[in-house]
């Protein structure tokens, strides 16, 4: 019997060792990618790089200001579209989980989440770009907002569904009308979770290239017009990294570094904010 216990203990130790090993292993890809991009890209970044448009081939210098501004504008518009729509839909799904509408729209959300981003780009191309006859930042924003929606909807729904029903009853029993119960009690109590969903969805779309290929297209000049083509960080990386020029490769590395840092910072802020605003139930 004692020998048996020895063997069983050894097996437990081995098992623990294996899971620790894999937990460590999955951190490696990120660390390696990070280090590589920092090594290649960090050196490119300076004030000139952030405030100038790309230089033509053969000219020294140049930066990514057009892509920075473009990404900012398009993500902003996409957020303005997707956050209210997604939150409202998420509230409906969590409030009425048993209805037919909730079943089918929930199903659509799941399928939408699985639609390849390039397909979203093509569809928006036929919806907006073709009728208007031009690539535009607006169409890019619409494509990005479609990518954002499922994440915002599901995170809102799942956060709100975890809130106890007693909370809603408390408010209703005070004579508070339904819309105020939702807006003043339910949403604020679930705000940390909803916010983290929103931040994650932004981190997700900021790096999307495919939906922008047929919509915002790209623009080597600084542009703020939403009805004209607009550059974005991922699209700039895509075009410049696939070019045959070393200068342009460096530009792409620098842009990659900025993009990665942005996503990293966004994730850290999300973690801090959700911890700070988490409501103790």
């Amino acid at each position, binding site marked *: 019997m004692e020998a048996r216990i020895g063997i069983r203990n050894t097996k437990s130790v081995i098992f623990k060792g294996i899971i620790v090993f894999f937990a460590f292993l999955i951190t490696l890809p990120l660390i390696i990618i990070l280090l590589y991009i920092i090594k290649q890209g960090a050196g490119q970044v300076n004030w000139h790089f952030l405030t100038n448009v790309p230089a033509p081939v053969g000219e020294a210098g140049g930066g990514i200001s057009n892509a920075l501004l473009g990404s900012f504008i398009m993500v902003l518009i996409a957020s303005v579209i997707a956050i209210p729509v997604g939150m409202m839909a998420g509230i409906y799904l969590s409030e009425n989980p*048993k209805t037919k509408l909730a079943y089918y729209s929930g199903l659509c959300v799941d399928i939408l989440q699985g639609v390849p981003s390039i397909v979203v780009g093509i569809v928006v191309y036929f919806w907006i770009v073709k009728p208007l006859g031009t690539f535009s930042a607006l169409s890019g924003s619409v494509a990005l907002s479609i990518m954002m929606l499922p994440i915002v909807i599901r995170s809102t729904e799942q956060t709100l569904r975890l809130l*106890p029903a*007693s*909370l809603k*009853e*408390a*408010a*209703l*029993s*005070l*004579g*508070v*009308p339904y819309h*105020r*119960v939702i807006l*003043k*009690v339910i949403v*604020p*109590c679930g*705000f940390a979770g909803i916010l983290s969903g929103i931040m994650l969805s932004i981190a997700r779309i900021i790096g999307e290239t495919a939906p922008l290929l047929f919509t915002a297209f790209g623009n080597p000049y600084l542009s703020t017009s939403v009805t004209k083509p607009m550059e974005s960080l991922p699209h700039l990386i895509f075009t410049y990294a696939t070019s045959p020029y070393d200068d342009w490769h460096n530009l792409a590395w620098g842009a990659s570094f900025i993009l990665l840092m942005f996503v990293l910072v966004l994730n850290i802020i999300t973690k801090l904010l959700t911890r700070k605003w988490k*409501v*103790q*139930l």
Partner: protein
Amino acid sequence: MESTIVKAENYNSYFGDNHVVKDVNISINKNEVIAVMGPSGCGKTTFLRGINRMHELIPNATSKGKILLDGENVYDMNAIYVRSKIGMVFQRPNPFPNLSIYENVVAGYLLNGLKISKADKDVIVEKSLTSAALWKEVKDSLHKKGTFLSGGQQQRLCIARAIAMQPELILFDEPTSALDPISTSSVEALFHELKTNYTLIIVTHNMQQAARVSDRTAFFYMGELVEFDDTKKMFTNPADQRTQNYITGRFS
């Protein structure tokens, strides 16, 4: 002269086809403490939730008959108005976790968007918390979140929240079933205090509690109001055999 505050006339409640409260007729006087007792599933909570129209919020839940509040049928009034006139305290303490103790007390005003001055709020908060026997314990931490309080304190905070709306009638749905014995006795002691200003209807599983705190007791069984009489008489000399069986513990 005793005046009636709540009167149920042939009141029935349903969950879909399930008839859970059957033809209840009851008349409750001002400043009384009424205990509503009965075995699980007898319809006592459903009846209680019918009084302030919380019952109808559950999908498929319907009701028939009248509940008169000060002579007026609550089913002819606006549900939101009815709920703001009748206080309710639930089984589990449910302070709003996003609000401070102070904000929780005036939540009925804040959440309804009623504008009241800071001075008025201060008065309401102190008065309500004092009535709920909580003022002394929390007066230095009014701006902390209500959820940091103990279970018993949270429940008294919920009572203060109900009192703050100045209701005539407060409904309690098994208010101590989630509390430890010490918190329970602090809440029970409060019922005696509240009686002077309010009418209380308390649903309870606990017969001893009904005997301790109430003036009159209603016994529900299988959706019917079997007996409604002075608490003393109910526990010493009940008229109905079913009441007798229940209080002697022949079924629970």
